[in-house]
C-alpha cells in the first residue's frame, strides 16, 4: 500500500519532537478525524534553522510530517511558503488516493506555523499566506470520506 519512502519515514521519522522556544507553532487537523499535526519552527534571519513535528495519525500522516520538516529545514521562509502537498507526495514516491489529504495537512501545518511566526512578529499573515486551515471540522480540511 505504501511506498518504501513512506515506510522509511514512518519507521524512522526525522525531526520528531518539540522545539521548546519555537518561533512559530502550527497545529492542524483534529482528533475526531484521526489526524493532528503540530509543527514547530525555529527561524533566524528568514531561514528555518530548525523544524520539528508531533503527529497523531496514520502512517502517511507521520511520513508526510517527517518529510515536510526535511523539505523546509535550512530553507528560507519564502521557499517554505511555496511547499505544496504535491511536492510532499512526490518526495514520498506517491501516496494512496485516500491518503492524499495527509499531504495537504502537512502543507497546512507548515503554513500554520509560519502564520503563527508572522503573528508573533506583529504581522498579519493573511495577505502573505492566505487563510490557513483551522481544521475545526473535518469538512474544512477538504478530506474526502
Amino acid at each position: 500500500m505504501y511506498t518504501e519512502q513512506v515506510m522509511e519515514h514512518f519507521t524512522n521519522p526525522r525531526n520528531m519532537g518539540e522545539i521548546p522556544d519555537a518561533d512559530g507553532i502550527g497545529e492542524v487537523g483534529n482528533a475526531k478525524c484521526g489526524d493532528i499535526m503540530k509543527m514547530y519552527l525555529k527561524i533566524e534571519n528568514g531561514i528555518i534553522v530548525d523544524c520539528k513535528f508531533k503527529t497523531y495519525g496514520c502512517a502517511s500522516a507521520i511520513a508526510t510530517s517527517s518529510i515536510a520538516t526535511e523539505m523546509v529545514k535550512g530553507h528560507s521562509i519564502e521557499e517554505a511558503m511555496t511547499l505544496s502537498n504535491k511536492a510532499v507526495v512526490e518526495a514520498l514516491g506517491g501516496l494512496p488516493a485516500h491518503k492524499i489529504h495527509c499531504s495537504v495537512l502537512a502543507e497546512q501545518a507548515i503554513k500554520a506555523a509560519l502564520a503563527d511566526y508572522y503573528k508573533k512578529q506583529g504581522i498579519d499573515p493573511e495577505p502573505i499566506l492566505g487563510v490557513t486551515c483551522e481544521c475545526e471540522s473535518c469538512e474544512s480540511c477538504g478530506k474526502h470520506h
Partner: protein
Amino acid sequence: MQNSNFIYADNAATTKLSPQVLDKMMPYLTEEYGNASSLYDFGQQARTAVENAREQVSAAIGATAREIYFTSGGSEADNWAIQGVARAMKKKGKNHIISSAFEHHAVLHTLDSLKAEGFEITLLPVHENGLVRIQELKAAIRPETALVTIMFANNEIGTIQPIGEIGAICKENKIIFHTDAVQAVGNVAIDVNAMNIDLLSMSAHKFHGPKGVGALYIRKGISFRNLIDGGSQERGRRAGTENTPGIVGLGEAITIAVSTMDKRAKKLSAIRDKIMDGALKIERSRVNGDRNSRLPGNVSLCFEGVEGESLLLMLDLKGICASSGSACTSGSLDPSHVLLAIGLIHEIAHGSLRLTFSDENTMEDADKILEALPPIIDRLRLMSPLWEKIKRKEGKK
C-alpha cells in the same frame, strides 16, 4: 514468507485454509472436475460430493440438508437473506425490518438499499457492552415487521447476542429471524431449531475453509426471492455452476470446526483473557464489549492518544498481523461504526486494535504480543500531540 516471529492474530478477517480441508478439495481441483449438474457419471460424482457437503453443513447447525444453499460467501448470504425475505414479505404488506446498530456492512448497506426502496428500518442500540436488550427488541416490533436480522457474534468486538431469546420472541410474534453467523459458526454452538433461527449466513474462510464460498440456511417454508437467477442449481434458488472444490472445503471445514469447538474455546479464551488483562495494564487503555458474552478468540482494545493504523503497521513490523476496525474498511478514514455504536467518541475509536486468534496461536503468542505492545504505544504517544493534550488535562485535574 512467514518466519518464526510471524504471529497471525487476525483470524476474524480470514483464516488459514486447513491442510486437511485442502486435501479433501484437491481431487476436485484436479481430476474430479465434472459439472455437478451434468447427467453422466463423471458429473454425478461431483454431485455426490456437493450433497455430502450439504449434509455436513446442515448437521453442524441442526438443519436439514434441503435447507442449505451454497453461496459465494458471507456477504452474498447476507444480501440474499435480507433482500430475499424483504421483497417476498413486501407483497404481504410487511415493510419494517429490525436490526442492530453494529451489524456488518453486508447487512447495514443492504438495509440502506431497502430503505431507499421504501422499507422502514429500526436499528436497535447495542449499548456499552455491545449487546442488544430484549426489552428494546420487543418494543420495536410492529404489526408490519417482516424481518429481524441481528448478528450472532460481532466481527469487531466479538460480543455474542442472546440469539435464543431473540429467536423465541420472533417466533412468538411470527416474524422471520435472520442471523449473520459469519463470526459465530465453528466458534459457538448453534442449533437453528432450538434457537428459532429462520435464516443464517456463514462464510467458509472464517473457519479454516476456502475463500469465496459460504452458505445460507433457509428454514423450510420461508418465502424468499432469489438474488442470483439463472440455471436450476441449488434447486433453482441460486444459479451458477457449483464451485465443487469450495463446497467440499466448506463441508469439511465446518465439520472439523464443530468437532473441535469446545477444546479450542478453552484454549483461545485463555489466550484472550491473558491479553486483555495484560493490555489493561497500559494506561488509558480499555477492552471493548462484554467480557463474558464474547467469542473465545476475540480481543478488542482501545488506546487513547494513539491512531490505529500506525499501531497496526508498527505491530506488522514486529511480525504481528492484527487489525483496527474491521478488515474490509480498514483502508478508510472513518472510525469503526461498531465502536461508535458502543458509545466511544471518535478520538478513542480511532485508537482501536483487534486481535483475533485461532487454533494455530499459542500462549507464547500472547506473551510476545504483550511484550511488543507497550513500547509501540509509548512511541506513538511520544509522537502524539493528542496524547500531550490528554496528559495536560490530566495534570490540571
